[in-house]
């Protein structure tokens, strides 16, 4: 009985803290994050005009020209109006978060969602600080559990060299708590109250904006070419193998499928052309009936492994993107 009052007070303190944080969280706008917020705001407003979505990393964002894709579809008698929801460095579970957010406001059914096949992103603290702090927006309770499950099922060889499993768990937990407690987001709340439209909506886009981004043709840098050539040599010695990833990686694909099908659309997975040894593919046991377009083979698609079409070791330039979109559309039409 002596400790009852202090324990009750601690519990009530935590209840007050989390309750208020949740209330505030509900009122907070999506943080302004380059290229993500603008796409989501755009889809919230104009989403119903599109019937096809592409989602994935920079490989999707820069490799698929949605306007060209639509032109090929019209020419083949299967018109589509597509939007490229690719975001640089976006992988599961961030893409699931984005997809949920993009579909949340739709009134009309979708036709297709084309998903880039990717594994869950596991970052060490050093990686994140050097590249992106995007977890601040997508690490919600659902995604946090995904990351935790993935970290716990991680094999010792998957642990990044400068990190540890527990270090990563602690790091992500800290990011999650910061997000849930809305650390440092007071000014956004104040601005949201006074500003009628967020910055991302003030940016002018033409009415037919389709979200894709391209890199102008220019000679690939020598350092990038060296990386690419090394990978190609490696791949010539040992061809790439299909790899199912971890159970959580497959669960993320399955979750996407459920979400896409709940909007009346068909899911199509594609594997972009990459010079990596392991290509992550959907498990035929659970995703057997989902079509997979596989471009990950230098023998079958030598043109996609031509350095002239590359902007860097992992991305096409605009000429490469056009060529890839054409081939993609051709194979897509074959599916139909």
């Amino acid at each position, binding site marked *: 009985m002596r400790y009852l*009052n202090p324990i*009750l*007070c*601690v519990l*009530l*303190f*935590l*209840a*007050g*803290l*989390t*309750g*208020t*944080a949740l209330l*505030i969280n509900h009122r907070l706008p999506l943080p302004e994050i380059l290229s993500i917020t603008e796409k989501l705001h755009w889809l919230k407003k104009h989403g119903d005009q599109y019937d096809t979505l592409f989602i994935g990393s920079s490989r999707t964002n820069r490799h698929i020209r949605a306007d060209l894709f639509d032109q090929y579809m019209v020419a083949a008698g299967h018109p589509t109006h597509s939007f490229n929801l690719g975001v640089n460095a976006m992988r599961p579970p961030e893409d699931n978060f984005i997809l949920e957010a993009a579909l949340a406001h739709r009134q009309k059914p979708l036709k297709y969602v084309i998903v880039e096949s990717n594994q869950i992103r596991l970052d060490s603290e050093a990686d994140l600080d050097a590249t992106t702090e995007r977890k601040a927006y997508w690490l919600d309770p659902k995604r946090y559990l995904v990351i935790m499950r993935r970290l716990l099922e991680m094999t010792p060889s998957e642990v990044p060299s400068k990190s540890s499993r527990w270090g990563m768990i602690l790091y992500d937990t*800290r990011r999650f708590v910061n997000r849930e*407690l*809305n*650390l*440092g*987001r*007071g*000014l956004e*709340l104040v601005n949201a109250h006074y500003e009628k439209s967020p910055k991302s909506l003030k940016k002018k886009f033409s009415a037919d904006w389709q979200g894709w981004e391209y890199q102008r043709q220019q000679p690939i840098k020598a350092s990038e070419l060296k990386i690419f050539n090394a990978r190609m040599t490696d791949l010539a010695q040992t061809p790439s193998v299909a790899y199912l990833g971890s159970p959580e990686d497959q669960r993320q694909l399955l979750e996407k499928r459920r979400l896409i099908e709940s909007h009346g659309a068909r899911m199509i997975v594609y594997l972009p052309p990459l010079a990596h040894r392991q290509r992550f593919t959907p498990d035929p046991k659970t995703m057997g009936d989902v079509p997979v377009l596989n471009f990950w083979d230098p023998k079958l698609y030598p043109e996609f492994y031509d350095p002239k079409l590359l902007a860097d070791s992992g991305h096409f330039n605009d000429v490469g993107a056009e060529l890839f979109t054409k081939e993609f559309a051709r194979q897509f039409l074959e599916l139909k």
Partner: protein
Amino acid sequence: MLFVELRFFLFFLLIFGVYWTLRSNTARKVWILICSYVFYSAFFIGVGVFSGQPLPPGWWFPFMLLASTAMDYVVGLKVQDSDETRVRKAWMLVSLTINIGVLVYFKYMGFFLESAVDFTHWIGLPASPSTLKIILPVGISFYTFQSMSYTIEVYRRHRAAERNLLNLATFISFFPQLVAGPIVRANDFLPQLQSKRSWADVDVRGALVLFLVGFVKKACISDSVAPFVDQYFANPHGYTGLSAIIAVLLYAVQIYCDFSGYTDMAIAVARLLGYELTKNFDFPYFAASSTEFWRRWHISLSTWLRDYLYISLGGNRGAKAFVYRNLMLTMILGGLWHGARWTFVIWGTLHGLALVLHREWDRLTSQWKSLRQTLAWRIFATLLTFYFVCVCWIFFRAADLSKPMTGADFERAFHTLRGFLGLKLHSPHKAKSLDIRLLYVFAGLAFIHWLNFRRVFSTWWRKGPDAIFALGLGAAVAVVILFIPVTYAPFIYFQF
């Protein structure tokens, strides 16, 4: 390890939990002592040492604290046990020489050498511009002053020497006040260590609210205005005159919230362990004179300077000129205590002059007592005092402590002073300006501070059941977290 960091909260939870579980007072003091040294070491030694990284340059500073404690323990006993004034004085001088010597070496050696080089260069003699690279141990100014006060008190027979080394070591190294004060007096703190603290006597609500208030001051207010101030002082020449006014006003907010916020948290942390620390701030910006300002600002330092320096110099005794000399010397040394910079000397001198002028003014206008008691007069005097304090802050802030002392410190100060006094009417072409809306922020903060000064917030949260208080505190913390800038600036007073 800063009070506003998550690792401090976890560290304190451990200290707090173990402390109140221990039954004996000695065990508690040993626990506090260990934790204080761990806390202090955390400023110099990171977790990297556990993964085989070499020890950083300041790894031995905690041993210096230990040595200083041991020396004062021995000196205290020697002073106590001797009946001969000469011997007692000699022992006290040993303590003062060592304490001041250490302080001078770490804090002022570079300054003296640089000034000597500048002087020899100025009179045309060849001078080597080499300077010593000495790392300043965090909190050295605070704990040496604390140790000295103990020895002086024993010498003056104001208290008996502490025969229990554990008590003295805990007093000197007590972690809440170790690195940035308040400078606690032996007479105030050592008696608290004699008896076991009782949880029933702890004002938990008061301590939690005080901690939250200190946290808001430091993490939400001071750290939020700091980037604007830093931006301005990095290049005052590139800003308009109005920006100088905004920057100086914001700096007044920053330094007050930073230092008094730290003190509030230190007092609250100590209070949660059952100890009471000295009050350090009492709404200094509502002072109606310079004299009153020093009764309200950094109280533990100003009273230390009064009791151990001003009075030792002769205090109020003797001719007027002699008294004013004592005042000026005390304030100049008070300025130098903050750091080895001529700008700090100017800051101290200005405050010294203001104290002298205020005394004279008091004497000359003694027959105007009724006028001076009116509200209008009080408001006028408060605004004037605040304006003067801001002028002094310009010199305080102008020094870039991360770099060696140069003429740029003065240039920054005088340029800002011109802007603040309204003498910089023409700004250079393409001069940048700080957002004028920052003045509204300043006005808002000043209004809240005034409400607090009028005790509007002082008691209502004490009413009502504990459950409601806990729930409300949780909600308040959630709101506070919203306004914490994602990175923390170190406490300003850690540098002194």
